[in-house]
């Protein structure tokens, strides 16, 4: 209301000018009281409405107490969520057809004595590591240098495959569910302790059905049989782990 109008009203009616102005521009306390009486919260209007101190005290205490309990429950729930609890469930399922597992085989010994001894002696002699020239009696001291020799060979980007036991030389007989198996059914990799290792039925890239055969292939019971030749007489002494 503009001041001019207000003055007119005051002139016309016998009322206090301040009372009119107050109603027009509510103070901060008024705003809070208005809010407290109308908010949808239960406790706050109770405090605002109360006319005696015990009543006000009762409402205030119960509001604070229950708000505290509420905060406690909410934080507990949030903390429980961020702990990401899990539970373990165990189920038994029947699966058919079942993939046959992968089978890996390697020779105990990583390298063949007959193929590697000449190159090895050349290496040890060129570095004056041992003074042996005979290919017959291989000593413990010589065995110390076998891996150094292989590392040196690899560092010069030369192949060591010729020293290793290939599956072609080991596989005498292979059969899976009555179907014959050859070295081509295996994938290979190198192991530091066993040299060449071969895996039957490994999951393959870019192959039909991932290259995996089922246990029930050819109507069989999932029986994989292989007969291998270990080349025991070609083992490099002191180099084969396992007893």
């Amino acid at each position, binding site marked *: 209301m503009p001041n001019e109008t207000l003055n007119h009203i005051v002139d016309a009616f016998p009322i206090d000018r301040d009372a009119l102005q107050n109603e027009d521009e509510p103070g901060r306390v008024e705003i809070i009281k208005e809010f407290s009486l109308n908010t949808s919260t239960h406790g706050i209007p109770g405090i605002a409405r109360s006319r005696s101190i015990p009543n006000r005290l009762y409402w205030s205490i119960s509001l604070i107490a229950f708000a505290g309990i509420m905060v406690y429950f909410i934080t507990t729930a949030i903390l429980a969520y961020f702990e990401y609890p899990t539970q373990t469930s165990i189920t038994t399922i029947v699966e058919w057809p079942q993939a046959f*597992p992968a089978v890996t085989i390697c020779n*105990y010994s990583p390298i063949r004595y007959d193929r590697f001894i000449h190159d090895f002696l050349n290496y040890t002699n060129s570095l004056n590591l041992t003074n042996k020239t005979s290919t017959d009696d291989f000593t413990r001291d010589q065995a110390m240098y076998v891996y150094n020799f292989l590392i040196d060979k690899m560092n010069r980007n030369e192949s060591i495959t010729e020293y290793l036991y290939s599956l072609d030389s080991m596989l005498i007989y292979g059969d899976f569910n009555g179907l014959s198996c050859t070295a081509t059914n295996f994938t290979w990799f190198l192991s530091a*302790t066993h040299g060449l290792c071969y895996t039957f039925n*490994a999951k*393959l890239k870019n192959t039909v059905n991932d290259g*995996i055969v089922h246990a029930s292939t050819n109507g069989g019971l999932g029986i994989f049989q292989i007969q291998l030749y270990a080349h025991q007489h070609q083992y490099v002494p002191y180099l084969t782990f396992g007893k």
Partner: protein
Amino acid sequence: MIGFFLYCYLFGEGSGIVAMIHDNARVPSVEQEGLLLGPGQHHRISYVKKRSTFLPEPYTTCSGEASARMQLMLDQYNGTDYGYSQVDCYYACLHAYMYVFSFC
């Protein structure tokens, strides 16, 4: 890799074949889990399949994805499609550590 195993396994004198049955998509850790089969004998190995499925992060610390560095190791297994496993990750880490400190 070679340097590390050298100190552990040198001077053994067994003979035969190392064999291992494993999941089709798992790296065969023959050095750790391989069975040592002596020559001149018939060996029969049977298996039971158990499958564990874990929830991803943040429920567990598990991951099914091999990192780019670990993929380099998996690529050494010619043509295979092997997946992540914690043990392999541990070995890849060990090997990387050895290279950093020039053990071999």
